[in-house]
């Protein structure tokens, strides 16, 4: 008897969330099949890739990054260059310098940088904060106001500050947020419930369910992503149908493989190619697990992942 293939489609689907404005706005989510199962049904939207820059520019100690950004010196020039990176759909500005335990860049300066970046690009803008709850609450509120109507995505609101961040970013100024739950699936759902109980429209936020570099507890990320997609699609759990964004680069460029020098570890070879490998394999894994958008740093990683997505769509 001939084999008859049955498509595994679901009556439920992931929400669609749009970031940015105009022709280059990006919509993520929308699919009603397991991640990348384009053989079951066409994927509604392409998985989006963000090119990461930081408030202090880019890491020019890596030759590939230095050459790509050559001649781009101001934050606006750097942002413009990032927005033109082949394979990238949006720019992700990481306000690492805002961290009170680091450079502690004041909110006003961060807002100014965010405005310069926003003005320099025509693709959507995603902004990641300092990861300090208090600072980010103030930061996201001010940025949301300064970039009112630009439909930027602020990453991320947490259990401690979701009310303030959602009220200002979404309700007052019409931007988007992600809800961060650090590999805690019950918290991921709870945050979505709390946001929905505030009356926030589900098309106004995404999830960041956490990430880890491959080999650094990634198995927890994998099982979290699997369980989220199973609940969202197979169990039609409306409180887990938000699309997922994963800031990959901040994890993968902070692990030993991407940091130690070739002089110290000659057997390991070039630091840059190690870092790219970590970034590519982690990004590929989170996309296979169900991430609808990833943030990456290196042009080579972005080229590799955008090629992978194009082949699998």
């Amino acid at each position, binding site marked *: 008897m001939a084999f008859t293939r049955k498509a595994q489609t679901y009556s439920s689907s992931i929400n669609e969330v749009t970031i940015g404005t105009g022709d280059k706005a990006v919509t993520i989510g929308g699919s009603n099949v397991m991640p990348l199962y384009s053989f079951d049904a066409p994927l509604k939207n392409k998985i989006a890739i963000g090119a990461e820059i930081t408030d202090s520019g880019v890491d020019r100690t890596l030759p590939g990054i230095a050459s790509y950004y050559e001649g781009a010196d101001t934050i606006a020039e750097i942002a413009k260059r990032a927005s033109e990176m082949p394979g990238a759909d949006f720019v992700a500005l990481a306000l690492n310098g805002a961290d009170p335990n680091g450079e502690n860049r004041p909110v006003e300066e961060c807002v100014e940088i965010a405005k310069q970046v926003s003005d320099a690009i025509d693709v959507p803008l995603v902004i990641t904060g300092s990861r300090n709850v208090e600072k980010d609450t103030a930061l996201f509120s001010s940025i949301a106001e300064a970039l009112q109507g630009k439909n930027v995505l602020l990453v991320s609101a947490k259990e401690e500050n979701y009310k303030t961040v959602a009220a200002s970013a979404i309700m007052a100024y019409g931007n988007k947020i992600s809800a961060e739950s650090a590999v805690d*699936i*019950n*918290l991921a*759902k*709870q945050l*979505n*419930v*709390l946001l929905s*109980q505030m009356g926030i429209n589900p098309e106004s936020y995404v999830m960041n369910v956490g990430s880890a570099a491959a080999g650094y507890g990634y198995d927890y990320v994998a099982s979290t992503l699997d*369980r989220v997609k199973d*609940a969202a699609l197979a*169990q039609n*759990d409306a*409180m*887990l149908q938000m699309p997922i964004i994963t800031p990959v680069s901040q994890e993968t460029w902070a692990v030993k493989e991407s940091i130690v020098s070739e002089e110290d570890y000659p057997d390991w070879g070039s630091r840059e190619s190690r870092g790219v490998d970590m970034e590519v394999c982690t990004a590929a894994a989170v996309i296979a697990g169900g991430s609808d958008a990833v943030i990456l740093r290196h042009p080579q990683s972005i080229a590799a992942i955008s090629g992978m997505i194009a082949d699998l769509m």
Partner: protein
Amino acid sequence: MAKFVVIGERIHCISPTIKKAMEEMNPEPIIKRAKEQIEAGATYIDVNIGPAEKNGPELMKWAVKTIQEACNNVPLALDTSNRAAIEAGISVYDRTNGKPIVNSADAGDRIENIDLAAANDAIVIALCSKAGVPSDNDERMVYCQELLERGMNEGMDPSDMWFDPLFLVIKGMQDKQMAVLDFIGQLSDMGLNSTGGLSNVSNGTPKYIRPILDAATVAMAMCRGLTSAIMNPCDARVMETIKASDIIKNNFLYADSFLEI
């Protein structure tokens, strides 16, 4: 596994308010009662118009349209012994949020309701009985097989046949309770869906006792694999028990606010 399906039983012609509203075709009391049940967590709303020998088809059509139009096309169970009325109800039914349920068929006089469900791509509640209460689980299983065979011959997907083991009243049939639960386990082992009139178990007990018995029964039955119940969703104790049991069965992901959603 899918979440437990609650079929709200409160639109029933035994209720004086509903009976009057149906006689007068007055939509307000019926819509109000549908909305209360949906708000309380019902997935399906049962519409019991009684035998309605005089105007069954007309009344069911009116009830289906009235409730679905007012309640975002909530899926309905069409509950009457009047077959023409069920067919008429299905003819105006909107399937956006789920197939209609034919309530109900049995292995006796009402076996043709299986054919009706099959012909209309509906779900059917199949009572594992013929005439009166089956004496034991062997008898229940014979009826179950008859019903299943009939449905499959008519081209039904077995998942659209929700088998009713017949919940029995505790006060009077206390010694039969575990057998009913065992039978639910047998249905579940066969991969079949099941449902039943939950509050039968607490019939005749004091009002404050009823939710306690209903809640304990539904938890024990869900543990054995019960997938649905026809019940009063406005009973908070029973609903909380069902939600908690869905969590324990991993049918629904836990979040601190799980009772609120």
